[in-house]
């Protein structure tokens, strides 16, 4: 969603929320001149709203991207009723998730007994994973348990993940796993 914040509302909100920022430093504790400079930096940028990826408070974040689609800024959403523009050090650093040379950018494969990663294509990796799934499933699938009861499950594959996925992805993932017959399905909520 694109949105517009005028300099006036921005100043009003940032002034009101500075006191509420627990950690300070990375929030909106800026002098008016700095705020004006900040505004210049994002002038003409596209603003998109999202929700922070760290703790469960659910703070609103505005991400600014330039004409090439590059992330140039991420800051607290002043209209959001929970954080009212404030962010903690983690949320305030979320820009560095997007712009970070250490991000995984390639599909990597480590062969048995190998000491190194090898770059592979999505097509190759997904085909091989699918073949592995089929092999493990076919070998370990049981229709009946030791008591002779029908269980129709795959004993040989387990999964952990993930609270880092969106709701729709979580739902789709459980659908995928249960269709394969998995019962060892776990994630962060258990630990």
């Amino acid at each position: 969603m694109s949105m517009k914040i005028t300099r006036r509302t921005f100043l009003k909100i940032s002034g009101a929320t500075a006191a509420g920022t627990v950690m300070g430093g990375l929030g909106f504790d800026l002098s008016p001149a700095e705020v004006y400079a900040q505004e210049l930096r994002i002038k003409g940028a596209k603003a998109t709203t999202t929700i922070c990826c760290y703790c469960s408070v659910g703070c609103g974040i505005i991400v600014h991207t330039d004409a090439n689609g590059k992330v140039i800024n991420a800051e607290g959403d002043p209209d959001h009723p929970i954080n009212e523009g404030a962010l903690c050090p983690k949320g305030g650093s979320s820009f560095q998730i997007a712009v970070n040379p250490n991000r995984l950018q390639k599909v990597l494969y480590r062969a048995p007994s190998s000491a190194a990663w090898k770059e592979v294509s999505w097509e190759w990796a997904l085909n091989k994973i699918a073949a592995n799934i089929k092999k493990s499933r076919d070998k370990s699938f049981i229709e009946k348990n030791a008591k002779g009861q029908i269980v129709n499950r795959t004993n040989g594959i387990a999964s952990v993940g993930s609270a880092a996925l969106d709701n729709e992805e979580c739902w789709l993932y459980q659908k995928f796993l249960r269709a394969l017959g998995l019962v060892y399905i776990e994630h962060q909520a258990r630990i």
Partner: protein
Amino acid sequence: MTNHYNDFRNADVILNMGSNVAENHPVSFKWIQAAKDKGAIFIHVDPRFTRTSTKADIFVRLRSGTDIAFLGGMIKYILDNNLYDEFYVKNYTNASFIVNPKYGFDDGLFSGYDPTKRAYDASTWALEKDEQGVPKREMSLQDPRCVFQILKRHYSRYTFQKVSEITGTPMADLEKVYKAYGTTGAPDKAGTVLYAMGWTQHTVGVQNIRAMSIIQSLLGNMGIAGGGVNALRGESNVQGSTDAGLLFHIWPGYLPNPQAQLATLADYNKTTPASKDPRSINWWKNRPKYVASFLKTMFGDKATKENEFGYAWMPKLDTGQDASWLNLFDEMYKGSFTGFFAWGMNPACSSANAGKARQALTKLDWMVNVNVFDNETGSFWKGPGMDPKKIKTEVFQLPCAAFLEKEGSISNSGRWMQWRYKAANPPGVAKPDGDIIHELFKKVRALYEKGKGPFSEPILNLKWDYETNGHFDIHKVAKEINGYDLTTGKLLPNFVPLKDDGTTSCGNWLYSGSYTEAGNMAARRKKTDPTGLGLYPEWSWCWPLNRRIIYNRASVDLDGNPRDPMRPLLKWDGAEKKWIGDVPDNAVPPMGTTGAYPFIMKPDGVASILGPGLKDGPFPEHYEPLECPIEKNLISSQRINPVIKVFEGGLDTFLTCDPRFPFVCSTYRVTEHWQTGVLTRWLPWLIEAEPQIFCEMSLELGKLREIKNGDRVIVASPRGKVEAVAIVTSRLKPFNIAGQAVHQVGLPWHFGWLHPKDGGESANLLTPTIGDPNTMIPESKAFMVNVSKLAKRPAKKPAKS
């Protein structure tokens, strides 16, 4: 959470216990501060003085693992001083219910214990019913067999002196907390509790929370603005991922995963919760509708009435099988799995007894690791002590989009489902997780279409139609979760019209109403606030039914008038015959007319002061952690929770009262990092702020072990050891436990060997494989360690040229 973050501001007293809210949920502190600004009392109870404590009106310490003793003392104080909300206790809780005459409790054990099975037969804890099957009640609360009197007897043992001996909290400090929190028993006062892993990560984790639930029920603090029991969860969507059934024991919407004895859907539906009390709504009676509608989303047209909507195609657990995390890694360690997905997770650092989890990964044939950054799980084969040549595990590391590079919703702890928009493309060839799942499933299905495999029906019949113009479309999944009327093809307005005959579909009944014909409710951004309580009913969407505070009919009297006139959450409009305020927790008329009890998800309709459904007893009872510093439980002969599963052998060792491991240890979090650090250690700003693992200890312990602030130390447990920088500080102090000095230390668990190189290892190398008997959440908050000073490293010799 029963309530939500903005609601903290409505409280008169806020108890933060088992959590460090200022450091770990920093922005939420805005609403604690707002309450404080209006005169609210903020209480922090913790083993350690933190930045939360600096803001507290009352800060008191307790030894880690003794919360039930602390709260048991509070229950006794509330009862002894008549601070409970009598109207609420009589009308909205099971205090007046009569318990089975065979119920008993003796020296730490409830009736029905079988020591050979280490398990209870809970039948003697049940509530007595009359000929109609309705629970018997005794409204004067005087019957010695009523829940109220049994509660009184049980906690009469939790005297100030006994509690102080166990917890190490001075008696005067106990009284300060009890007195302040006890004031919220008045109907026009609201008390709330905020907790986190400090309560769950114990072998009595569920009972910690039960103890507080009893207090909140006694004080009439459930279902009101400024009240509730509020879990501050650790991840941005751990609420949503739980709701979506990514756990072994539940399908989406908390529908139990079927077990083998339930061979047919008819068998499964026979276990639907039932109540014969005409005053109990027993909402779970609707479960068969939610199950049938869920199966329709799994198998679409292939799910028919005749085949029980494909129930047979769903995998079943063995009866009583526990496939939870600790057992999963135990099985992996034993070589039970050939394949493994670590999707958006880093178990090599997040598992309790992480050394065992790392070894377990070597037993796999293949692993798929999906993440935003490299991590200790994906790269385990080159980690410390690993010889890649000997490790046969094939590893696929798939790069995924970060949160701001894709569209979708997440649910915060307050159950607000908020929509995220895509701001940018992911780097390189990284893709959103949803796209990866979609493409992988298509590949698997193609293999089963081509070649034979056992029982391929669930794969071939799976409803999988999520593309728009050849691309994966997350909105199609969101709509499927909301559900359709299959006779009209229209999106459902909510879960009320769901049916059990196959004419409706719904991926998760709790989320029905989130994406309707009126649009994507989670994306709403209107800040209207008609109640003035900060419910913001048009901002995002909240499950269930956009109800912002659950059990909210407990906030009114029998005529439907708010019991707290300053914070009217709901009010019955007699003329219009409707409720005004929050979405009512069921729109029945007030109880004084033809209405029903307010706790609609409980079969009896009331809050459970006696809770007969848990494995370790109907009332919380203090037991020591598996590893503890004292030989004997000071309140009974049962040292540890009598029903916990103890893992033995292999890499699982435990030692208690062993002079080699004399100090209590907790793991915890810091503001600048998150979980295992995968999403924070790679961020330069954050790693500069908190570059490495440290171990906090008291000035007294520093003196005892000749450790100075800044020294390097080794922290060792029976499972492993980590090197850390010592922080010798007055933030920790030794406890006086029945005359004996007990030292406690703590360290954050955000680090790992991969990055940064001098950041240190995971503190989970120390934690034990032991879990709560109900949830199997590991006991990471109370175990035993030693701390010793590390001899200075020899200076590096100059490299030879």
